[in-house]
């Protein structure tokens, strides 16, 4: 695999995490414009831990995810009463607060005669863990995909279990779910925290893959893209967001014909797709039909 | 005046009407009874042009209306009083009435103002509340407003969908008295009702609709009252 292919494929893998994160919120019936905040938190926390404090990567990632998950818990609890556009804008505000906040974080330490650490809008470079530990890009890509498969396994397992049914019920009609004796608040927060952790995981991978991050990477465009991926791919299954990511980053990046017109092509494609498939390519109905077909054959 | 001939309507994959034939005569109150899910509201929506019939004909005064848009159906002289009233909640009572006369308010401002005054004479409670937001009216008042609003388009036939839904029995009596009064002034009415007792007390003719088909038609008294009520609620199985 050429370096270019490895970097595109790795990118797809990392963006898939935040796309899945936005997808989980769509499943519980909420639109979030703010998942990039957890992605950014994961990136910054784990980056600081490895680059400045010399922690091992796995531990830094665990803590990055934990902080992202805690932030999701706090924001999730504060926004419990909100839904629809109110929820969307509240999450957007939070994410922008994080991004703008990071713009004024200047914490640097001297390591080997060089200043390392977040430097506001100048960004945070020299997150050199993979160089220091001789991890090749290909190996790191493998790590990304092993973790992605892990997350997907959890999601598929949830989808098939009672928990998945309960979460879909909370998403499609919270009042009805409540009337059925389901603890809506608990499941909503559970899904929100899990979504935060996944986004944090993606972010902590991203920081170490890119070795340089800056607050503006985690702007609202990233959030709305990840939201769109789920909707393009379909809300019926966790494969949906991956299709969206593949279509945008993989297909259009790969097909050089659209060079310079990529967004016109992609935007038009998505708009037309949504006219015919308003709940995405793999919506609930199609997923159901495919499952039945698989069972029969 | 209004004849529905062999109409088929589907909601997506579900067939709601399977060849309904009925007619409403001028100056009469025609009732449509039947259990939940029999297709009563679907029929109303199909006549009003909100849903499209897959097959069959709907004629109003001899003119085919089954292809007309909802707006054209209103212009032809058919007004719908929807289930659950659906008043415009944060608009005032008077604005609701104006909205009811939307199809002619631009051409005939004076006529609309006259009609609003006429509605206030008929429904004095609406006059008292003319500046109030419609969403703050009681259920019965909202039903009166919905009825008055429908009359504002100067229809020749009124389609009423479940006017008694969610109202206290005493209020239901009032509403049906108003229906009688409106009819006494010459308005043709097609009434969908769950409350078979009330409906039969005002109907000149009634139809029983079950599983998207008419299973009985006749005048009140032609079928044992208990039997009608039983079938109106439960259908025949």
């Amino acid at each position, binding site marked *: 695999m050429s370096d270019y292919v490895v970097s595109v494929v790795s990118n797809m893998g990392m963006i898939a995490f935040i796309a899945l994160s936005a997808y989980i919120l769509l499943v519980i019936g909420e639109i979030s414009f703010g998942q990039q905040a957890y992605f950014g938190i994961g990136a910054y926390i784990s980056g600081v831990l490895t680059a400045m404090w010399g922690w091992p990567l796995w531990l830094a990632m665990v803590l990055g995810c934990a902080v992202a998950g805690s932030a999701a818990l706090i924001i999730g609890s504060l926004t419990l009463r909100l839904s629809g556009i109110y929820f969307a804008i509240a999450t957007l505000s939070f994410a922008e607060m994080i991004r*703008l906040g990071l713009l*004024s974080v200047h914490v640097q330490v001297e390591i080997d005669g060089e200043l390392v650490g977040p430097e506001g809008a100048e960004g945070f470079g020299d997150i050199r863990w993979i160089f220091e530990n001789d991890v090749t890009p290909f190996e790191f890509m493998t790590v990304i995909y092993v973790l992605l498969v892990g997350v997907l396994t959890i999601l598929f397992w949830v989808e098939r279990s009672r928990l998945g049914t309960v979460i879909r019920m909370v998403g499609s009609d919270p009042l009805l779910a409540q009337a059925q004796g389901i603890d809506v608040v608990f499941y909503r927060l559970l899904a929100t925290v899990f979504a935060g952790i996944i986004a944090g995981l993606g972010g902590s991978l991203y920081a170490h893959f890119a070795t340089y991050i800056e607050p503006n990477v985690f702007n609202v465009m990233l959030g709305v893209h990840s939201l769109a991926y789920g909707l393009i791919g379909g809300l019926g299954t966790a494969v949906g967001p991956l299709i969206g990511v593949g279509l945008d980053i993989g297909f259009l990046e790969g097909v050089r014909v659209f060079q310079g017109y990529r967004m016109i092509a*992609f935007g038009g494609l998505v708009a037309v797709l*949504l006219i015919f498939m308003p709940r995405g390519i793999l919506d609930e109905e199609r997923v159901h039909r495919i499952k039945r077909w698989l069972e029969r054959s | 005046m209004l004849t529905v001939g062999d109409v088929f309507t589907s909601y997506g994959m579900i067939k709601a009407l399977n060849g309904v034939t009925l007619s409403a005569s001028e100056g009469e109150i025609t009732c449509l009874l039947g259990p939940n899910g029999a297709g009563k509201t679907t029929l109303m929506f199909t006549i009003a042009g909100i849903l499209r019939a897959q097959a069959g004909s709907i004629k109003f005064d001899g003119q085919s209306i089954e292809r007309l848009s909802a707006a054209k159906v*209103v212009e032809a002289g058919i007004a719908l009083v929807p289930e659950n009233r*659906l008043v415009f909640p944060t608009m005032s009572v008077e604005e609701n009435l104006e909205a009811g006369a939307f199809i002619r308010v631009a051409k005939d401002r004076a006529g609309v103002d006259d009609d609003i005054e006429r509605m206030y004479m008929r429904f004095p409670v609406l006059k008292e509340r003319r500046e109030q937001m419609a969403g703050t009216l009681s259920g019965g008042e909202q039903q009166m407003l919905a009825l008055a609003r429908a009359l504002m388009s100067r229809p020749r036939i009124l389609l009423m969908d479940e006017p008694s839904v969610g109202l206290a029995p005493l209020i239901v009596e009032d509403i049906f008295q108003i229906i009688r009064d409106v009819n006494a002034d010459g308005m043709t009415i097609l009434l969908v009702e769950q409350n078979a007792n009330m409906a039969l007390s005002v109907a000149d003719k009634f139809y029983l609709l079950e599983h998207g088909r008419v299973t009985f038609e006749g005048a009140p008294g032609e079928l044992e009252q208990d039997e009608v009520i039983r079938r109106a609620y439960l259908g025949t199985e």
Partner: protein
Amino acid sequence: MAIERELFAKMVDFVQNCIDGIMIGAAYGLLAIGFTIIFGVMRRLNLSFGPSIMLGAFFGTWAFLTLNAAPWMVLAITIAGTVITGIYVERLCFWAIRRDATIASMVSSFAIWMQLDEVAILMLPGRTYPFPEMFVSGGLNFGPFFVRAEHLVTLLVTILMVVGIRLLLYRTTFGLALRAVSESSDAAKYMGINPSRITFLAFILVSLIGGVAGYLLLATDQQVTPYFGLWVTFKGLIAMMLGGMGSIPGAIIGGLVLGIIETQTQWYLGNAFKDMSAYVVLFLALVLRPGGLLGQGIAERQDLAFRRV
């Protein structure tokens, strides 16, 4: 004496910030009105509102740069460009998509946003372009206070437009239909109103408003970048949410509050906190008072609907 003078100078600063805030906030208010009208008739969010205005302004700038168009021509072209783009967005993202598919419409309007950005960049590949100044420039002194002429024009045009919009909504048949569709598009249909026609006309109206607001903002700043689209969408959304959705006075008040918050924080805390403060206030407002500052919000309407049934 010295202390008093210092206090007076502080007061002057504060009031001057409020004046500047109100002037900028007036344009925010217009943007918020655009959002609130569209959200009202469709119950769907048009993320492409800002980018449509941005593209309209790029047409205006293009005409200014290549054809040397006069300010009033730039204004006309900006408005026309916004209206055409608005119609394109409406047809593709809203009219063509089922009315109940709200998320699909929103994502579609985002996809089209990407398109509009790229069209702007293809048209003028540099990042920043000058935008011609208004017919007037300079400013006026009122005692210790100073008001820029552009700001004064913005305020006056906003007042005129708000009065015009109010008359249109409350004194015309179109306004009646638009309000009826906003309250209940089903019931409006039963009255013989065609909701998709009203939506289409509302898009044209809103594009007109947006085109004017965009022109006022850009002619004050005298430069335009593709980021203007993002900026407009979020300023408009924030102002609308601050004031409470579904109300014209709310939109204006939200715009003014946003303008004042921004200028005050910029003055006292510095540029870095200008945008931050708006988001903090919005977040707190949403969490503490979901209906907005002026409460004819959806939350209250839903309450009303519950009480009714």
